[in-house]
């Protein structure tokens, strides 16, 4: 629950974080770093969207994740709404406020600055149902945003039925005929069905493996390439509030001493880069038959979660032990994201960010590069955030 108004009604401890016109992840993290914000900061944090006009859904998801971290220790986060009403409409359309209420388990007025409480219910211009002129692919993207194929979707994960319903609804969204037509034109390969079949399926299957997750938020958007957008992509991201991949694997290691449950079906070679460490560390090559031990640090555990056959799940001798592809979900995911779609995969856990992408160094014997970043003044997030980025082309 949100703490009561009285606890925080003290303007001296309010820390305002003005987000600029464009709310994207890089910008967001820069602002947080500059302001020295931490998720365990006791001050009331006021995320100020007043000047914001455009929102990257992954940035919004990251804000929700950070807010989720703070709320577990009864630390408050509030929002100032965008002044431009079109921007406010975008937040409404993407269902940002519903998601924020569920993450915070608080009614919306508790999450807003007093001046904004009235405004949030003001009705902006009715979402226009007509197609605007302009690039046909852009029109379809707009239509799919209105249809909520793109945007934020919130799911409860209380029981098996709810988890199945999430999978079913998402696969339905990602096989929308219009979306498929868009993918066939703007994604690499000839794999329009593979967005649902592999990327969405594996990213959500992964969420279902996280213990104690009660909520998942799926965020997605697509930008078709234009001259003014250098890195256009289809982005699909999922955040859940369950135990982190790292904690879960560590528990498996402590209790069983080993988290390799099956031999790696094939051998990939990774070049591991570490950023944000106190002293520079040389890159290291590692193959997918590597396994962590109790002495491995959090970053190594997160890296290990990518590897096929690594799982916190015990071989319990029951039905699960029949599954020789246990622990292969993220392996299938990065393979497809990188090999088929020529994209990249990011996993955020705590204050660690892992990026896996194709190796481009000509002299390297690795196929993939894993970058591990930590300790750059970025606040911790709760749960797990997985982001697949599939570049779009003309």
């Amino acid at each position: 629950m949100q703490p009561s108004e009285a606890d925080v009604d003290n303007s001296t401890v309010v820390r305002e974080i003005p987000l600029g016109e464009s709310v994207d992840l890089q910008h967001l993290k820069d602002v947080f770093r500059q302001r020295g914000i931490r998720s365990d900061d006791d001050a009331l944090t006021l995320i100020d969207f007043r000047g914001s006009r455009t929102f990257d859904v992954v940035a919004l998801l990251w804000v929700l994740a950070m807010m989720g971290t703070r709320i577990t220790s009864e630390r408050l986060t509030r929002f100032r709404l965008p002044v431009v009403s079109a921007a406010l409409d975008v937040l409404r359309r993407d269902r940002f406020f519903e998601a924020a209420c569920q993450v915070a388990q608080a009614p919306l007025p508790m999450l807003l600055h007093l001046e904004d409480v009235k405004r949030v219910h003001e009705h902006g211009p009715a979402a226009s149902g007509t197609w605007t002129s302009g690039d046909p692919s852009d029109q379809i993207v707009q239509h799919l945003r209105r249809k909520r194929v793109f945007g934020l979707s919130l799911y409860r994960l209380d029981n098996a039925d709810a988890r199945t319903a999430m999978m079913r609804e998402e696969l339905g969204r990602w096989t929308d005929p219009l979306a498929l037509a868009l993918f066939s034109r703007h994604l690499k390969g000839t794999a329009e069905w593979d967005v649902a079949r592999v990327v969405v399926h594996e990213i959500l299957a992964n969420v279902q493996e996280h213990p104690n997750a009660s909520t998942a938020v799926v965020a997605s958007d697509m930008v078709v390439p234009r001259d003014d957008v250098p890195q256009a992509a289809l982005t699909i991201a999922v955040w859940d509030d369950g135990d982190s991949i790292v904690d879960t694997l560590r528990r498996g290691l402590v209790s069983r001493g080993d988290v390799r449950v099956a031999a790696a079906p094939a051998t990939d070679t990774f070049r591991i880069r570490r950023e944000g460490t106190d002293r520079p560390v040389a890159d290291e090559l590692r193959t997918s038959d590597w396994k962590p031990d109790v002495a491995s640090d959090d970053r190594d555990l997160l890296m290990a979660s990518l590897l096929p056959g690594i799982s916190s799940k015990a071989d319990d001798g029951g039905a699960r032990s029949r599954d020789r592809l246990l622990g292969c979900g993220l392996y299938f995911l990065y393979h497809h994201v990188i090999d088929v779609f020529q994209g990249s995969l990011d996993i955020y856990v705590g204050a660690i960010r892992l990026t896996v992408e194709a190796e481009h160094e000509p002299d390297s014997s690795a196929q993939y590069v894993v970058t591990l970043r930590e300790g750059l003044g970025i606040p911790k997030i709760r749960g797990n955030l997985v982001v697949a980025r599939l570049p779009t082309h003309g």
Partner: protein
Amino acid sequence: MAERWRIIPKVIRLGSATTEDVPDERLRFYRELVADVHQGAVSAEPSQTIYLSFEQLRSAWQLYDRIIADVPTSEDPVEGTVVLVDFTLSPHELIIQTVAAYTGKALGTLLLTNPGLEALVLMPAMGTGLQQAFRDIVGAHHPGHLIIQYGDGSRVRVSAGQVDDEQIQPPDPEYAEQLQRLNQPIDDRLGGKILRRLGHYRFGSSEKYCTRYFFDASYAIQEVSQLTKDIVLEEQNGSAGPLMIVSHQAHSPWLVEVGAEVAQRLGIRHFPVSAGDDLANLPTSGDAVLLLDVVNTGRTTEALIGGLCARGLVVRPTIIAVFIDRERLGQARDSFPMAVDRRTYRVRGVAGPIARRKTERTRCEQCLAGIHPADPLADRPGIRSYDMWEMLLTHEWVPEKYGPGDPDQTSPGPPRFSLVPDFTRIFEEYGDWIAYKLDEMLEATRVGGAGVEEAVYVCPAEPAMNTLTDQLKARRGARPVAVKIPRRILWAAERDDFSEVDRHAELGWGRQLSRLAEQDMGWGRQLSLLAERDSYAVAIIDEFNGSNTTALSMLKILRRFGITALAYLPVINRNPGSALRLAGGPEVPIRPLYEIPSPRLSVLDAADAAGGR
């Protein structure tokens, strides 16, 4: 090389909640395909589909067991064995990586234990990882190989010792077409998904007329898009300049998506216009294909053509309409000519012709009774009285032939109703809409979990219900939906005689396949398979409920198999307010499409009432 081949079919149906026989037509298709790959005479074993429901996808390893099962080890030099795994009945998005990998592992394992075996996979999805799993199991030094036939007819050989697949046949449009015909011709698919809503609707923007039907293709966007794309492609070939699609959606917002999808696929522009829009947003030159949702009299179409020409556009001579009114079509099957400003156009229908039963509002009983024509898209669960009674009274009523009690009515037992509505004919005529209404009601009953598309309906095996379940199946793209229990079994259950039921229940999965096939025990096997799972939706349905007797029999049989029904959906409930529950079991909600309370029973009616259902 063997002289003859025997096919062991493994037809995988992902996202399905039950199994069904593989039809002869399909086996014939396999025989021809295998004869094309391996020379010689070919036979195919009778078989049933292997299914993994949506929830079961997470334990895809089950597929491994089912592919391995019942493949004989044959050393026969004359007759070779081909294991044929067919994924073409599964939606692409459900052929997930683990499913493909376990298929590769299973085939690899079979080849290792049975070196003479041939394996052929019909696979609609590309890049599944099946090959890698196969190579991992077989190992690089083994001569084993399998053949994958893709949806476009191209064929590759996957050898354990080679990293890359070897293409052995280029794409073959004829195969792709045959396969589509086999799986379900697009016209059938479209027909099954088009919904004729019975109600009281506006006729276009007319104040003068109203209609009894509204035709809705919003569940068939994919099929409409595909057929529209074919016509636009023909036009594109005959068009000198760049082509655009102008779609006009009077009452069908979904048509915008059809226009946009076709345009995106063909790389051309699309401009949607709605009723009353001016055409100012349209370009002033170029060739336009006009796409409409419905053509009734053709006046709107003529006005549109005039407007587009005045704007400077060249309207292509083929006008595409999803629906054309039967009256306007006259004797023609699917198109009619239209002249505007001395130019001739041809309006081509995508779906079949429609008859909307138009009435002048001054003569419409409903309008006269003060009922306003409704918005077809604002429908509610259940069936309105006016509509239900119209259906019930369209045909002569008939003596009740099927009902509880002794099937031949030779021994003393509850008598049947002397007259009941002719449900077979009602379902033949209105079944699409009633099927939609049942799905809608089940959806309203369920919260979360398995979607209605994976629900299984259990009903008596009788002609009327067969007609209705065919319509339900068509709605879901020919996936199996119903378990039909023979009346003699229901009658025995009434008397708590489960001897035959128990024989079926004992014959679980995989044990007595051949015996089951011989004895037409489809329903028992279907229920055994349903019983293995715990999170599917099973609902019981029937044409009408008189006294809960048949419903209780179905519940008893389900309980014998360990299955709990989610709800009972009779089309008509004549026993409202009653509770449906087996001793010691939970109450099963009754959710009828319509209720007709039985009045207080008179002495004369007592015989009928004793019948009931």
